[in-house]
């Protein structure tokens, strides 16, 4: 009986176009957008820029700035600027004819003229700002050790960090991966709607289908469990596809514990179905409102788990750590992070334990309400 009901429901669920879109396709689409947004940052590749043609007009002698400009021009690899030292009239003509992107004025305080806005102009402005900030250092080095100026420019032009996050679990760490952890968490939490839908088609006070099914000599629990099992399979396929897409197609690094990462997502899916069942049974309102509650539950938890801002979870950890302990999306994304970053499974096990307990509590309460309920109206 259970198997037959399960198989029929499986077919029924897989043919629900809207449900399969949100479960199977939407996470992939969102993942693609994330990848397109953060792809270059995730791969560590830098933007490719052409050498910027620029004119240089000397108004007042400034050896340090001139030396820095020349050093930048002849730097190893692709030069940042292609400089033309000329008078102001020629420089302006070059600017008008688009032969120069901008004009550097060598003066006591160097300044810049550009004809329009754009990436290259911004880079020139950025270069000039950086020089002005560090001008005293450059001027001193140019005066005292001109032969060291090239090395100094190279050193000061790079950003230095004296602390960095590294993985102890043989995986590369990237802060942008938080978005993908949150995406997987959101994909799991989408099962909340499926849980609500299962209850909607099983209870007489929520749908005609529920009425017909409750008239049958089959236990309500058997029907609900077969529906939930079918929903779990669909959601698991969705999660698997997302993992496959992220790891195999987009080649994102989820560490060497993919099995446990997938198990985390399955646990999250199980919790979400239980939460959906709870919303379906405990809230005394129409199906539309229940679906709305499920959607809000999913979006709010995903938001606070860092789906829209990667640092959100850290911020919550500072102001209200308890919320991170009970937010299922945060627990899922944190488990994925912990599996990727730590050799120990303690943090992962703690998160999974909390999710399991919450799942059991929701199932217990839902079962209790269901057993005691009779319908005052249909």
């Amino acid at each position: 009986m259970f198997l037959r009901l399960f198989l029929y429901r499986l077919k029924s669920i897989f043919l629900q176009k809207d449900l399969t879109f949100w479960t199977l396709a939407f996470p992939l689409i969102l993942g693609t957008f994330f990848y397109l947004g953060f792809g270059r940052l995730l791969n560590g590749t830098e933007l490719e820029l052409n050498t910027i043609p620029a004119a240089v007009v000397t108004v007042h002698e400034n050896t340090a700035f001139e030396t820095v400009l020349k050093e930048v021009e002849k730097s190893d690899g692709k030069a940042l600027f292609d400089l033309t030292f000329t008078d102001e009239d020629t420089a302006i003509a070059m600017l008008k004819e688009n032969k120069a992107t901008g004009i550097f004025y060598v003066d006591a305080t160097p300044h810049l003229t550009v004809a329009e806005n754009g990436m290259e102009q911004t880079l020139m402005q950025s270069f000039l700002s950086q020089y002005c900030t560090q001008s005293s250092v450059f001027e001193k080095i140019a005066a005292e050790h001109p032969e060291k100026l090239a090395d100094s420019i190279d050193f000061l032009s790079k950003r230095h960090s004296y602390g960095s996050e590294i993985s102890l679990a043989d995986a590369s760490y990237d802060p942008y991966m938080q978005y993908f952890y949150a995406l997987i968490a959101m994909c799991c939490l989408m099962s909340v709607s499926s849980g609500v839908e299962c209850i909607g088609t099983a209870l007489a006070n929520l749908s005609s289908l529920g009425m017909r099914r409750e008239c049958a000599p089959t236990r309500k629990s058997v029907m609900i469990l077969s529906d939930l099992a079918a929903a779990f399979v669909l959601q698991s396929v969705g999660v698997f596809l997302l993992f496959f897409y992220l790891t195999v197609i987009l080649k994102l690094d989820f560490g060497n514990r993919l099995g446990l990462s997938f198990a985390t997502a399955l646990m999250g899916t199980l919790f979400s179905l239980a939460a959906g069942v709870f919303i379906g049974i405990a809230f005394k309102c129409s199906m539309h409102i229940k679906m709305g509650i499920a959607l809000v539950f999913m979006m709010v938890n995903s938001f606070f788990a860092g789906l829209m801002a990667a640092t959100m979870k850290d911020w919550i950890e500072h102001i209200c750590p308890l919320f991170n302990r009970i937010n299922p999306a945060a627990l899922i994304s944190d488990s994925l992070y912990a599996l990727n970053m730590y050799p120990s499974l303690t943090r992962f096990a703690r998160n999974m334990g909390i999710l399991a307990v919450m799942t059991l509590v929701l199932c217990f309460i839902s079962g209790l309400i269901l057993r005691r309920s009779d319908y005052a109206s249909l």
Partner: protein
Amino acid sequence: MAETIVKIENLVKRYHELVAVDHFNLTVSKGEILGLLGPNGSGKTTTMNCLLSLLAYDKGSIEVFGKPMKPDSYDLKRNIGVVFQNVAVFDTLTVQENIDYFCGLYIKDKKLRRQYVAEAVEFAGLSDFVKFYPKKLSGGLLRRLNIACGIAHKPKLILLDEPTVAVDPQSRNKILQGILKLNEEGATIIYTSHYMEEVEQICSRIVIMDKGRNLANGTATELKQLIKKSETLTVEILELTDTQLEAVRRLNHVYDVSYENNRLTVQCSGGSHNLIHLLSYLQEENIAFGRVYSELPTLNDVFLEITGSELRD
């Protein structure tokens, strides 16, 4: 004496201040087609839902097949088929799969179920549509699928709650013929409707409900005998004086007359040959007349006389 299949005693169901079912009594015997007739909101569906133990009720008792009906009376539910007013099928299962799904909730034996499903498909005239999804079916076919899902397991008691709402006349006729066939095969049927013609056409006994109460019950003929009116005569007459109208009023068994828009309407109570008496009078008085109609009372007349309002109000 026929076996009692359903026995409802003193059923009361309240929705806060509203009394939806008010001390309602009903007995249905084996082999009957009982029509539960009443306007929308009269408590028919609520009574059905209480009978099926879908709804908790405030007072009274319900027995089906001689046993109290409870939400977990699976042995009783096994022999009950239900067709609800709203179509209740899975949109993403085909016609055959839907019937098989619902039949499977009652019948575990695979071979028997396959046979029952085939018979239900045949019964509902859906043989050409077994691979169709419900969205591809017309309104009438969808209703027939709804019925097939409710009766495929060959129940001994079938409850049909307005199964012909929004159905075209051809499909409606097919559905009604199907219900008669189910009854011939041994099923006891409770049929709720506010279409008096349907109830009169197929039901062996009729219960008239209004405001949750059982107002009258009996066969269609018995119910019509309860009321004063036995016949309505209508005659097209170009001209009729007040004196002549009074003379018509004085004819035997006539209790009400009216003359409007060149139509004389005469209400008769009991008696026979009322039409002959009226036409004889018109000929004696040399009153020219056109078309003549004679109408027997309908269930609507019964309802009107009992409640003071039209059944279709």
